């Protein structure tokens, strides 16, 4: 039966059919739905780990124990898990181990753009790349067989357009029977204890394994030649295959389901059957560099160092318009005269042709107001950023919804790098002797992810950092996943709800308070007091995400009293989408009065608390007013 599945759902189906019994990961766009889907299958164990490194260790542990295991993460998650990634490549496992890296070309929801195929090459493990959801399911199953055949972890490399595109998939309701591959946990230190003496023996083994994999790649069913016209041959893989078919419908294609290691002979044979050979791939010249290194002649023959990618851009995701324009600019396709309509200006030589989707947007003459992402109405993070902005302190931020504290008018974040970086970066400024006292802002899930060791460092090395933990009781940005603070597991089991305050105290910090995140006055008073003192301090601003069901039930729209409001603009400064400038002007100053959109307002009262004229009703006043009416 065919069903429309996203690439992520397809990977989950593939893993289930392949008999995977353990899967672990950390939420991250665009990877999140793989584990959410897998967790709902019968007879499987799936968990959100606190971070990707732990998740990968868990998957490796299950695979050492003879059970097929899956680890899922976004591209930057592999950075966090890199230590585990590298040792697993050295040891191999007893049963199949597949690591999904969901890359995010164009950074729809990421801090950087990296091509994780490089990680597979770095670790000498195979890299498989699906081109649609059917491919994603099939390659997931193939990846487990490959992993066991060659005693190697396998990377399944996805990208946003594969993860979040739905295409028809043949869904098999049957699951491969996969009892543990071993009777007893291995006692094999030469293979699994990577002390130098053992590791030195393992390294040549993985280099030989790579040669065996390259030989296998020649006959791997997912490396496929599609001969059409011989004038142009295209080596491609992943979503770029679809663009190749769309823009060059008559070209011959070598579609690589495995982009590392490459099938040399297949590539040479293909090169010999076409007049002109190009590589079409997204991001790095990963295939292209390898093919040139083999001495195979690609078109164009010359590339400029250090940007060895020819024809297509190295930055941003591809799309049919960019592929067509790049091909036209390189002289592969005739100019159709529609280049300007698509708005791109890619040239073959340019290393940074287009931030994809940016130049393509925009509509010529009419200047459209932007609709940037913002903190939602009722967001419990809003008050903290309003106060931090007001206090004019340097703020080191972190990764989550609350990164939007950087957006005007809150404009309260000065650095954001990666998960958990806030506290360490603030500590660095403090020990460097920066004159201002630094505030680190981090969410609950991010604190559990990598914030804990950084805060331990602040406590241990006694710096003046103030850490604010924005505890909204969920992993909000990626869609409300459970975490160690929620009291629920991925598979819906009740579990210990880790309390942050005792944890912070146990790390060695005495100055700790928990305040409801909507209590802006108390937050301001506490921070002002701490700014005059020395030593580490932690404020836990706690209130559940306004989008959680239990919070939605409490929504009450507040109201502005037009007779009390004088248009002072203070409530506009909290940046709430529910607060509008009304058409009514204050008679004295002729400033627009505030107005509240009753469909958007949740009744969080942050605006009411900051209003100096008590012009905005509190919840009980609204309820009271309506009761009297």
């Amino acid at each position, binding site marked *: 039966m065919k069903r*429309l599945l996203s690439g992520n759902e397809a990977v989950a189906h593939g893993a289930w059919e392949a008999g995977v019994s353990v899967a672990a990961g950390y939420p991250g766009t*665009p990877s*999140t739905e793989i584990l959410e889907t897998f967790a709902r299958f019968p007879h499987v164990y799936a968990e959100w780990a606190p971070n990707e490194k732990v998740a990968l260790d868990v998957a490796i542990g299950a695979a050492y124990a003879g059970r097929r295991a899956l680890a899922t993460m976004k591209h930057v998650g592999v950075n966090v898990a890199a230590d585990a990634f590298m040792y697993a490549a050295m040891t191999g496992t007893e049963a199949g181990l597949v690591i999904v890296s969901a890359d995010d070309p164009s950074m*729809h*929801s990421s801090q950087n753009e990296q091509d994780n195929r490089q990680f597979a090459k770095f670790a000498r493990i195979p890299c498989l790349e699906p081109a*649609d959801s059917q491919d994603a399911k099939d390659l997931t199953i193939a990846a487990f067989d490959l992993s066991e055949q060659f005693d190697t972890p396998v990377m399944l490399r996805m990208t946003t*357009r594969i993860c*979040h*595109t*739905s*295409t*028809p998939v043949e869904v098999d309701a049957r699951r491969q029977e996969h009892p543990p591959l071993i009777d007893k946990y291995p006692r094999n230190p030469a293979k699994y204890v990577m002390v130098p003496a053992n590791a030195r023996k393992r390294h040549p083994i993985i280099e030989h394994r790579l040669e065996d994999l390259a030989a296998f790649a020649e006959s791997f069913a997912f490396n496929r030649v599609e001969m059409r*016209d011989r*004038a*142009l041959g295209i080596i491609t893989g992943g979503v770029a295959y*679809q*663009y190749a078919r*769309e*823009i*060059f*419908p*008559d*070209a011959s294609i070598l579609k690589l389901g495995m982009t590392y290691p490459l099938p040399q002979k297949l590539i040479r044979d293909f090169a010999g059957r076409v*007049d002109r050979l190009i590589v079409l791939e997204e991001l790095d010249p990963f295939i292209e560099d390898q093919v040139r290194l083999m001495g195979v002649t690609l078109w164009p023959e010359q590339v400029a160092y250090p940007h060895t990618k020819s024809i297509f851009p190295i930055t941003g995701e591809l*799309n*049919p*318009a960019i592929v067509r324009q790049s091909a036209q600019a390189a002289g592969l*396709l*005739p100019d*159709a005269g*529609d280049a300007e*309509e*698509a*708005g791109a200006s890619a040239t073959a030589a340019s290393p940074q042709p287009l931030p994809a989707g940016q130049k393509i*947007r925009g*509509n*010529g003459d*009419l200047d*459209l*107001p*932007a*609709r*940037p*992402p*913002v*903190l*939602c109405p009722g967001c419990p993070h809003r008050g903290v950023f309003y106060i931090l902005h007001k206090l004019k302190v340097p703020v080191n931020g972190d990764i989550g*919804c609350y*990164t*939007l504290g950087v957006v005007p*008018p809150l404009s309260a974040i000065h650095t954001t790098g990666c998960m958990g970086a806030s506290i360490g970066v603030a500590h660095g400024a403090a020990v460097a002797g920066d004159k201002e006292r630094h505030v680190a802002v981090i969410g609950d899930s991010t604190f559990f992810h990598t914030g804990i060791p950084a805060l331990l460092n602040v406590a241990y090395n006694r710096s003046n950092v103030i850490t604010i933990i924005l505890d909204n009781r969920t992993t909000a*940005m*990626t869609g409300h996943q459970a975490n160690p603070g929620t009291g629920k597991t991925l598979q819906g089991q009740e579990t210990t709800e880790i309390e942050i305050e005792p944890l912070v105290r146990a790390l060695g910090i005495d100055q700790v308070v928990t305040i409801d995140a909507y209590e802006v006055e108390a937050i301001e008073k506490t921070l002002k007091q701490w700014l005059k003192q020395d030593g580490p301090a932690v404020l836990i601003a706690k209130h559940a995400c306004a989008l959680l069901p239990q919070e939605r039930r409490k929504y009450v729209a507040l109201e502005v009293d037009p007779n009390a409001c004088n248009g002072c603009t203070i409530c*506009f400064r909290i*940046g709430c*989408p529910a*607060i*509008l*400038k009304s058409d009514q002007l204050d008679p004295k100053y002729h400033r*627009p009065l505030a107005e509240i959109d009753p469909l958007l307002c949740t009744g969080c009262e942050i605006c009411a608390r900051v209003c100096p004229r008590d012009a905005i009703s509190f919840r009980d006043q609204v309820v009271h007013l309506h009761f009297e009416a």
Partner: protein
Amino acid sequence: MKNATSSQPTTSLPPLNILLTGVGGQGTILASNIVAEVGVALGYDVKKAEVHGMSQRGGSVVSQVRWGRQVFSPIIPPGEVDFLLAFEKLEALRALHYLRPGGQLIVDPHAIPPVTVTSGDAHYPDDDAIQAKLARVTPHVHWIPGVTIAEELGNAKAANVVLLGAFSALLGHAPDQWLDVIRQRVPPKYMELNERAFRRGRELIQTERE
């Protein structure tokens, strides 16, 4: 280089390209799921592409659906959308360059001012400017007041289904297949509301033609 220069598919008709756009919370993704499933039910190859995560926190939401005998790229090139469904009129303008000149535009006159407008930093374009801009790309602009109709029916959230009704009528489809798919996608207690919303959308297109 005889045929590597051709960009016309030789094996099949080009796919039907549908782009849906709106603001986070308007049900744009749900609507595109329905469109994609209808495509499958009609026997087409289907691709549906969207982006999740940060780009959705109150921001613009775009979902692309392609139906065809064989569909390759999940992304529709600018200027090649056949049907543009916009659940908010500013978002119709933002996605307008995707529409093929002369393509069909179904747009809700509903306005959701972005925070750049409510903060007073930017101006929401007035209706004359919007209409003039749309008219330059296509004469086929169907104003469907989905939010108004859905509110009349008792729940503004059904606005997306009003526009889907209009879309189904423009395609000349009978309602049954669409309603079957909607039935699988919405909770039973909302089905009656959604069916009424869907039929109201169809009626508006039928009235347009009279």
